[in-house]
């Protein structure tokens, strides 16, 4: 890194960063080549063919089909290479690995709130372990924000009324900028923070520094009971509502013939807009919990539902 006293290039602190930078340097090389070519040609032609007498009249040259085809197909081929390369990278960033550590993020004007599954809650900071994939499930309480960590080369808008997700695997311990990068009002440029990447053992130590209130899933279970969900959503399908065991990732048949794969957004929507997607074979009798549960509460219930795994009729899993 240059010792100019200020950086010219960002840290590479995630497994993706190097790959993104590779594509970036390829594009940079292409750009230097073509921009350089054009600039050199312009300068050479300008000098070589400068007007030497006022009544000079060059021969007209109408065109050349071969050249046109050449300089259409070559850029086309190069941009298609760039497209495929970029699309493949994008695909990787879009789908988190199954074993990713999940952290919930709620954005609001003008701060970030992060919730670890064990219950730790952070404001404008996020502690994560290096060497492990981390998936963020994010929503906004008001306007559109954006979660941007330049050192990881990741970015995703954070929307009101929906979850968006992003994932990364930090490769280098350290402290990195977190920026909000979707203009969100007065303190948009103040909505910044730090991602603190720790070695896994140090991270475990930080975690066991105790979080008040218990894990997300246990908080979610408390809400599941206090809001009355448990009275209809029995573990087998005997209740008035479908069982939620093993729901995430399952294909659900809906009324009207459609079916969808249950994801975080589906669970959130079912809590807040229960009649949007009614499961086939059930009555649309679920009341809405909009206004009765906060976004954090929804995330806790979600964590609880995710913890209801596999075995039919299994009780609560801690």
């Amino acid at each position: 890194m240059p010792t100019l006293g200020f950086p010219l290039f960002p840290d590479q602190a995630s497994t993706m960063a190097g790959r993104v930078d590779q594509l970036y340097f390829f594009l940079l090389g292409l750009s230097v080549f073509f921009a350089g070519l054009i600039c050199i040609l312009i300068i050479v032609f300008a000098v070589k063919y400068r007007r030497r007498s006022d009544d000079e009249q060059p021969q007209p040259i109408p065109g050349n089909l071969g050249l046109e085809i050449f300089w259409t197909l070559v850029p086309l081929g190069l941009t298609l290479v760039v497209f495929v390369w970029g699309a493949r990278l994008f695909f990787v960033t879009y789908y988190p690995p199954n074993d990713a550590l999940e952290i919930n993020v709620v954005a609001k004007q003008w701060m970030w709130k992060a919730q670890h599954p064990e219950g730790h809650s952070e404001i404008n900071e996020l502690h994560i372990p290096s060497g492990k994939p981390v998936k963020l499930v994010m929503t906004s309480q008001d306007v559109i924000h954006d979660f941007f960590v330049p050192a990881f080369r990741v970015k995703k808008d954070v929307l009101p009324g929906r979850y968006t997700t992003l994932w990364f695997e930090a490769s280098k311990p350290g402290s990195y900028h977190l920026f909000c990068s979707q203009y969100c009002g007065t303190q948009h440029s103040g909505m910044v923070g730090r991602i603190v990447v720790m070695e896994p053992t140090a991270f475990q130590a930080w975690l066991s520094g105790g979080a008040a209130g218990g894990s997300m899933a246990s908080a979610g279970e408390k809400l599941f009971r206090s809001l009355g969900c448990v009275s209809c959503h029995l573990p087998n399908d005997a209740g008035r509502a479908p069982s939620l065991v093993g729901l995430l990732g399952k294909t659900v048949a809906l009324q009207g013939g459609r079916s969808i794969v249950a994801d975080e957004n589906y669970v959130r929507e079912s809590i807040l807009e229960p009649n949007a997607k009614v499961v086939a074979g059930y009555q649309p009798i679920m009341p809405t919990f909009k206004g009765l549960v906060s976004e954090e509460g929804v995330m806790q219930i979600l964590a609880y539902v995710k913890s209801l795994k596999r075995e039919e009729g299994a009780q609560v899993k801690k």
Partner: protein
Amino acid sequence: MSDSNLAHAHQFDDAAQQHEASWLGMWIFLGTEIMFFGGMFLGYTVYRGDYPAAFADASNRLDITLGTINTAVLILSSFTMALAVRSAQLGARRPLIACLGLTMALGAVFLGIKFTEYYQKFVEHLVPGGGFGLSGPLAGAEQIFFSFYFAMTGMHALHMIIGLGLLTALIVKARRGRFSVAYNTPVEVIGLYWHFVDIVWIFLFPLLYLVGRHLQ
């Protein structure tokens, strides 16, 4: 003006070029209007796809009798407008003025019925905003439906009001004898505009009034 068939604005070479330019200009303008209304149709389509039950419920709260009457009124007004264009092409001044007047009358009836409907909706607390009176799980999306209802029919009504203004201008010119067999382009192109406004309504009516309705 005995040589009115030769008269044309100074930038044109001849009357035929002027006519072609006017005609092309109006069609291009109608193209922009399609894009203008198109944005609202797109938004409507997205939300109807997201909230079919709410849209059906909200649509059933509209007065289908008044809506149907209005549709008939507007189609009839397009007929009288076409008759007006035909009269102009034949140089028939009195029928032209009569047909333009009829078209205006029908347009006014349409607007009267429309504003009656708006008033009804106000009384029923179905105007979006603080006073929106529905509640329940579908209420949010129903408010979105009514937002589109007012925005789309309101924009349509605005275009009709502009149309009435244009027709007034045509009647004034017709009374002064400005149109003839040789020169009737303004009637023709404003006829195109009127027909377009009618067609927009023909799309609005089923999308707003007929969602989830079945013949008994």
